[in-house]
């Protein structure tokens, strides 16, 4: 581990001392034996990981989680894809007087995008006016190439239930490939996949899956869908958190129960960005931030919210 390299540690402490005056040599001696540990991406990564210090290179993509079902995916050439932008505050989507809970996620605040994908017609998934720039909206099943990225949609369904605001029971699973990495966003899928749907989706590297349970996949079905698609990385979404304390949704911990490879980076320390790249030799996905390597099999990563 490069983080335990004494020369690196010396360099880091020397820099820290020189910034704050550098008068106390004694304190340097005291601290030199202590362990320094960091969570997530931090300055330590910038120093120990040479790629990080140089900047993004090669086929490296960045994924950020805005909460609900919304992800921002940035390709290596800077194309920005936003999946399922949501309405954060509004009387129609958030009837506090009726249900008594609040959505504390921040809005996207006109985050610029090149392509916005929309899975279903709920305002938790299709609030495109919070996105800035002049994006293309992709929400169909016909394969389309936008900004050099091929998008495919797979028709599926919501749970068939009485929905209080807008009746929209169709759901589109969005699949696309960025820098050779196959991403699948399940939107607000509410059922196990059929064999035909699995065939249409094909190989998946990164799977974004709803685990909340209400209007989307219950945890048991979410596990089944993960098994069906067999991705390398699973990013759970649409779960109960302190930002959206909806009692009818499930916490993410229920989905993580019994999972072997879990990488939690949802603490408030470090960057909200996850970086992925494709290993050109083995054609397998590798995580370049926050963790340098992926174990074999499926890894569940819990990203932190952007705001």
């Amino acid at each position: 581990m490069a983080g335990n390299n004494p020369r690196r540690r010396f360099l880091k402490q020397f820099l820290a001392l020189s910034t704050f005056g550098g008068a106390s040599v004694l304190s340097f001696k005291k601290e030199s034996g202590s362990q320094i540990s960091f969570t997530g991406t931090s300055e330590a990564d910038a120093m120990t990981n040479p790629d990080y210090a140089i900047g993004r290179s090669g086929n490296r993509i960045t994924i950020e989680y805005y909460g609900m079902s919304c992800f921002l995916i940035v390709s290596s050439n800077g194309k920005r894809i936003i999946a399922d932008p949501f309405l954060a505050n509004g009387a129609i989507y958030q009837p506090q007087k009726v249900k008594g809970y609040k959505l504390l996620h921040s809005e996207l605040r006109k985050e610029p995008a090149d392509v916005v994908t929309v899975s279903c017609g709920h305002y938790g998934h299709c609030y495109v006016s919070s996105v800035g720039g002049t994006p293309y909206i992709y929400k169909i099943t016909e394969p389309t190439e936008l900004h050099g990225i091929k998008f495919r949609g797979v028709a599926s369904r919501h749970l068939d239930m009485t929905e209080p605001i807008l009746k929209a029971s169709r759901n589109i699973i969005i699949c696309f490939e960025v820098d050779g990495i196959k991403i699948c966003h399940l939107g607000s899928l509410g059922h196990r996949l059929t064999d035909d749907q699995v065939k249409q989706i094909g190989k998946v590297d990164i799977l974004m899956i709803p685990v909340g349970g209400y209007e989307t996949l219950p945890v048991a079905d979410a596990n089944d869908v993960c098994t069906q698609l067999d991705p390398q990385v699973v990013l759970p979404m649409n779960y109960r958190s302190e930002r959206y304390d909806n009692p009818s949704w499930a916490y993410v911990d229920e989905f993580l129960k019994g999972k072997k490879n879990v990488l939690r980076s949802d603490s408030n320390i470090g960057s909200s960005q996850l970086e992925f790249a494709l290993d050109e030799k083995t054609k397998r996905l590798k995580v370049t931030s926050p963790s340098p390597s992926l174990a074999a099999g499926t890894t569940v990563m819990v990203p932190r919210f952007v705001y």
Partner: protein
Amino acid sequence: MKIKWFNVSAFMITTEKGVKIITDPFAYNYKPQLLPLPPNFEKNRPPIGEYPDVITLSHGHFDHSYVGAGNIKGVFKLYTGGAPKEYKGVKFSGVTAYHDPVGHNHHGFVTLNVIEADGIRIMHTGDYGQKRLYDEQVTQLGRIDIMMTAWGEWVPALIEQLKPKVILPMHHARIDDYMRGFKGFVDYTSKSSELEFAKAALPSEMQIIMLKQSMETNL
């Protein structure tokens, strides 16, 4: 170019080259939370269901920004204001304004979208509600040929400041004595929901053309 009114604030502009632009699509399947339901409430209203090239949105309210569930079909570009853009030969620009009269801005901002196609400059005011435009806004908007606006106390000031050739009332505009009192009022409600415009054939004196609604709505 052709301009068709669906209902509320949703128009479709079809240019001579066939580029389709839809402004402010509304939530066709909106069900009010509060009971009793309005008298015209119907559970299954049909959506707009068009395949446009561009959608312009003035602000994020549900009656101005709904693209989901078959309301708008196909793949399309989105313009919500910000820097001016050109797409398929049509120029888009947006000027920020207040939703409510200044001092009561609890609804925030709207974008006054200006669409320039076939030499005609069209402004869509969304839910604009200022008493008067600021001088800066008038400068940024520039020449306006066709103005789509909700009907209210801000209309005389808009006419005086922007001097449009054609006004298309929208968003629950109803023909009443106040509207009839304006010079150049034309009633098209029994004739057509679609009109054709050309730059050379724009009227020299201002006309207020009340179109026929081509869709029913719960809003």
